[in-house]
């Protein structure tokens, strides 16, 4: 059987987190009543003129700088002409021949491996409105309802090169891009609300063949899971079709989340004749070096740089560094906790943050910015674990108590509840003697060669001390007494 190679390129529509629209002063907030955020420009009344939003341009520049792209000193807006009821002008303002951001690359993490995906370009454009069909219960029979609140919302369309070779790589790319646009503060990343949507261009070719196969474009994937499912299905379908002697026709396809299948949209002739031309309502967008330099100076430390620093400064693993830089909030939390716990305890901080705290946040459906436990509280707790003041089981108790009360420190809880670890040999010996007397059977079992009985005795001693005994010392003392 022939071996196939999968080729994937991704176009992503990133909704820019501006307060007003890209060419008008309408607000962009999500969830307003229909057409309440659509002004004369958005609904395309005659005689209106678009004026470009400065922050939208700034966000595009930020993205370009964060991906090592070229920022075009001069770029042009173009009209993309097509007819659809939710596009009242009859054209979408976009960029065609000269986009604002050119080239660049993004590092992605696939398992343990880091790979580079090249970017083709990123351009500014406006979003269209929304069509609601009767199925949605909004409009009467035989009618579609048009809501133009979204019309004119700023988008940055980011186009990758066809550099991905599996659905896992495609998802890794989408995740890295999603994390980056949130990190640099240009997009809220809310995928349910459509702030981040992917189109995947998928083709297959016999391994070793130089030319690409014919591609089909899967439109509008708004979750990482759908992206993966849609590509997997599409790849199987394309390979099966080719192996049956069929041909792939270039097409736009939709993913049906219920059936898990992709299917071709009815292809209209002329559908792709957009007759782009420079928009005479907009002048060339000129970006000078000084502006770019100013934005560069304001950029936060980027995830890749921070990842490297976490590995070299704190001795964390690559995996830990990737998890801790999944968002700026996460990274900031980690570094604040370490500032309190001490640099040498960074690994323990990472473990508690990625283990206990993340599990709790997941359980409660919260993000790190809504944490019940502040970074300095966690740092204080880690410091007491590291210096032996409390044992790990007790630390869990303290952790839970801290989550209940944001105003209290680990030290206060430890002293208030008398949780300080017992390292005093006399006190420990007393506890152990009592345990040995009370558990004669276990002692006999151990002496008969059952190693398990030893662990049971340690457990009894820990229990008798309410978790406060130093487990290491308990081990030693027990061994000595039983030998």
């Amino acid at each position, binding site marked *: 059987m022939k071996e196939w190679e999968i080729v994937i390129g991704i176009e992503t529509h990133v909704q820019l987190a501006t307060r007003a629209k890209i060419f008008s002063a309408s607000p962009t907030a999500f969830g307003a009543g229909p057409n309440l955020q659509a002004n004369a420009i958005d609904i395309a009344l005659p005689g209106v003129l678009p004026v470009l939003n400065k*922050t939208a341009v700034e966000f595009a520049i930020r993205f370009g700088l964060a991906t090592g792209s070229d920022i075009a000193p001069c770029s042009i807006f173009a009209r993309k002409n097509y007819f659809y009821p939710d596009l009242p002008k009859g054209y979408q303002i976009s960029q065609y021949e000269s986009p604002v951001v050119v080239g660049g690359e993004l590092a992605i993490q696939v398992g343990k491996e880091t790979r580079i995906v090249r970017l083709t370009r990123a351009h500014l454009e406006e979003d269209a409105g929304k069509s609601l069909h009767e199925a949605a219960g909004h409009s009467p029979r035989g009618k579609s309802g048009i809501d133009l609140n979204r019309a004119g919302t700023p988008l940055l369309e980011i186009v990758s090169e066809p550099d991905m070779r599996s659905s896992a790589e495609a998802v890794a790319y989408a995740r890295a891009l999603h994390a980056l646009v949130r990190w640099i503060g240009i997009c809220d990343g809310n995928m349910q609300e459509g702030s981040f949507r992917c189109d995947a261009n998928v083709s297959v070719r016999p391994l070793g063949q130089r030319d690409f196969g014919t591609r089909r474009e899967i439109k509008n994937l708004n979750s990482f899971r759908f992206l993966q499912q849609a590509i997997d299905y599409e790849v199987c379908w394309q390979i099966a079709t080719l192996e049956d002697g069929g041909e792939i026709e270039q097409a736009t396809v939709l993913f049906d989340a219920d059936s898990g299948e992709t299917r071709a949209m009815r292809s209209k002739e002329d559908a792709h004749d957009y007759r782009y031309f420079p928009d005479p309502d907009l*002048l060339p967008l000129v970006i000078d070096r000084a502006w770019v330099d100013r934005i560069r100076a304001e950029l936060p430390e980027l995830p890749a740089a921070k990842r490297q620093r976490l590995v070299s400064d704190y001795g964390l693993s690559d995996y830990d560094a990737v998890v801790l830089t999944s968002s700026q909030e996460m990274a900031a939390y980690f570094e604040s906790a370490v500032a309190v716990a001490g640099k040498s305890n960074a690994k323990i901080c990472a473990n508690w943050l990625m283990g206990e705290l993340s599990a709790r946040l997941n359980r409660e459906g919260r993000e790190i910015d809504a944490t019940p436990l502040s970074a300095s509280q966690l740092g204080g707790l880690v410091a007491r674990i590291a210096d032996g003041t409390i044992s790990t089981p007790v630390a869990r108790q303290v952790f839970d108590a801290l989550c209940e009360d944001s105003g209290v420190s680990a030290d206060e809880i430890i002293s208030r509840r008398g949780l300080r670890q017992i390292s005093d040999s006399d006190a420990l010996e007393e506890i152990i003697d009592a345990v040995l007397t009370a558990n004669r059977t276990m002692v006999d079992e151990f002496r008969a060669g059952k190693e398990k009985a030893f662990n049971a005795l340690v457990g009894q001693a820990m229990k008798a001390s309410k978790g406060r005994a130093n487990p290491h010392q308990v081990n030693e003392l027990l061994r000595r007494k039983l030998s």
Partner: protein
Amino acid sequence: MSLTLEQVRRVAHLARIEISDVEASSTLGQLNEIFTLIEKMQAVDTQGIEPMAHAQEMVQRLRDDRPETTDPGQRREAFQALAPETGDGLYLVPKVIE
């Protein structure tokens, strides 16, 4: 270079303009005259001259990212008074299904 009648019909269709056969041929004549003019302009030597994207040699002015505070309900009412059909705040159009 000159256009064919078929190309004129296609352009009209793309622009969703309905034209009769008579209109198509008179439009063809007019468009071909424009092409003649363009040919004359193309004869000018523009070697080494940067093409302009706009007739005016100016750059785009930028607007601060400040949302307006117009009364949205009142405005919607005024706009929708102009629309052929509305309902629940939506503009209603003949059903479109992709």
